[in-house]
């Protein structure tokens, strides 16, 4: 079905206002888009890892969620989903439930790339019929912008401070989407916010309606942690895609597919300069660092092109 935002906008909003995320946060944009992809006649059980999202959307006695939601801890969202999904299977088998439920898990990069990785990997390997959506803002924002394994190289965070002896994070970003693809699950995709969110919607819908495990990695910028002006979020996302820092691709039943190829690859500094967390790279004497980032982005992009048969 062709993407029609007007029609989709008519669907009931499943992520309600009144949640307490920061003004301009990318995460609720992702939540809203993913939940819009859920067919209105279907229900969902949503699981959340401890995160900004959790402590802002489910604060006793308030919930911002129209669907059932459970938060248990930081590191185990996928395991909790496994249990809820098994309960659903059990109830269905026993004829105790007529409705269709979908199982969606939301975690930040901390709860996904790092502390929640074991639980995620386990649930994926077991073939749990669920979608794991990572809203990747590249650091532990909930606790105050500490580095994660998703934080890109040379980014400044509160645990990768920049100073005379430090250029920020030393290590490169973990390529989690590829790690998930290596789980040989039916659907893996990477996306972010672009235009009218067509790419995100289509991937979310495909992920939700794929039988078995699916993983969706959504770059969801954080104005506070990345230090850009909140209104510029879409500009930042576009630059990430145009510079190939965050390519759009999916892996369907093992088949790699590139979803977007920039006509002209944007130099990586055009992406970096939008964000205060990379400001130090533009100081004299640090030119080689940007070149290094560019080389890394180029190498990964070439690898991706190969995987996608481009």
């Amino acid at each position: 079905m062709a993407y029609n935002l007007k029609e989709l906008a008519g669907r009931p909003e499943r992520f309600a206002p009144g949640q307490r995320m920061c003004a301009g946060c990318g995460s609720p944009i992702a939540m809203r888009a993913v939940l819009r992809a859920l067919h209105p006649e279907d229900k969902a059980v949503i699981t959340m890892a401890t995160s900004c999202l959790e402590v802002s959307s489910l604060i006793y006695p308030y919930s911002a969620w129209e669907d059932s939601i459970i938060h248990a801890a930081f590191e185990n969202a996928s395991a909790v989903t496994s249990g809820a999904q098994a309960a659903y299977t059990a109830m269905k088998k026993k004829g105790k439930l007529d409705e269709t439920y979908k199982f969606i898990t939301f975690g930040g990069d901390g709860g996904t790339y790092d502390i929640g990785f074991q639980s995620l990997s386990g649930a994926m390997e077991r073939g749990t019929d669920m979608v794991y959506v990572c809203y990747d803002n590249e650091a532990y924002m909930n606790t105050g912008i500490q580095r994660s394994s998703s934080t890109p190289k040379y980014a400044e965070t509160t645990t990768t401070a920049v100073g005379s002896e430090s250029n920020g994070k030393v290590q490169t970003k973990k390529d989690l989407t590829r790690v998930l693809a290596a789980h040989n699950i039916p659907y893996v995709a990477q996306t972010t916010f672009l235009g009218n969110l067509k790419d995100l919607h289509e991937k979310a819908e495909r992920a939700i309606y794929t039988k078995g495990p699916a993983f969706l990695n959504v770059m969801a910028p954080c104005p506070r942690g990345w230090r850009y002006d909140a209104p510029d979020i879409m500009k930042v996302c576009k630059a990430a895609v145009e510079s190939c820092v965050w390519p759009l691709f999916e892996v369907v039943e093992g088949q790699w597919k590139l979803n977007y190829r920039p006509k002209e690859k944007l130099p990586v500094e055009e992406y970096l300069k939008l964000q205060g967390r990379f400001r130090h790279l533009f100081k004299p004497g640090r030119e080689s660092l940007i070149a290094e980032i560019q080389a890394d982005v180029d190498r990964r992009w070439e690898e991706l092109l190969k995987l996608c048969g481009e």
Partner: protein
Amino acid sequence: MSRRDRLSGNEAVANAIRQIDPDVIAAFPITPSTEIPQYVSSFLAEGKLTTEFITVESEHSAISACVGAEAAGVRAMTATSSAGFAYMHEMLYVAASDRLPIVMAVVNRALTGPININCDHSDSMGSRDSGWMQLYSEDAQEAYDNMLMAHRIAEDPEVLLPIMVCQDGFITSHAVQNLVLEDDETAKQFVGEYHPKHYLLNPREPAGFGPYGISAYYMELKRQQTEAMNHAAAVIERVSREYGDLTGRYYGLIECYRMEDAEYAAVCIGSSAGTGKAAIETLRSRGVRAGLVKIRAFRPFPAQAIAQALQNVKAVAVMDKADSFSACGGPLGAEVRAALYQYGARVSAVNFVYGLGGRDVRVDDFYAIYRELQEVSDGKDYPMFQYIGVRE
């Protein structure tokens, strides 16, 4: 019709699980509880269970999956020991605060380190303040019986707390003994159906579990848990009475063995109680008025019942199969002494730490304990706590 059989403690628990047929089981292997998920797997392979069995990648995920399943509206179970138990620690608190009546079979084993696979109670004692109910079993029969009662206790609307059914690793889990199994239909009927009130998969009303509890609400939510634990004592007694009427096997919060006229008593938990009983029979034949109080429910802690049972003895040995490293003895010692003090029972209470890491407790050890109690009641000084069977 009930059936006489001879099974190990793990087999007994597995048979209870087979009869209960919970909707979801999530478990990870760890000695000595590993056999339980193995039996579950073989029951499933033979079509004797309808359970959804989640072979998780860790104990943390096992208990997390149980939280998810139970919150979703079904019965969930797991089994574990020792390090696996400790790995669950954080989620035990979550399960309790979410008020999810999960049932966990615990096969007690010493907590590393050094690594040791044998029995003591350091694993479950480490989570005594997690908000779970704890029932301890003397032998395979009790482990089986406690499992059949566990759901009824945990799911009672006045309680709604998770429960662990503990037995001693290897000592009972791997020892074959005689026991009586209820027939499947009787067991199923006793356990009954589960009808949660608020749950994730309720199509009429969505639910949100595990919210952020700000300071304005957190303390009231904790207070609620304590209230539930207060109710639990009466519910355990009621369910146990009903179970006794059905099977002829009656249990309380504690078991008093030859306490009517006892002058010297031991208080202990688990399989050692059986060894103590054998010692008492011999001592009685020699004219020593020995008795024993076995703790079945450690959470809720039956302080008043214990104080009452001990109020007329001359001296009591409180036996801990776990050290607290408080430099003041073990957890049972601390709590029994507090109970005696609260209820005005002026009894000399000698705290013994024993059986750590599978150190065997013999009938002879009990003779020595009762001898020590006789000396204490004759005026001998005794330290805050002491060890049994340790090389100094």
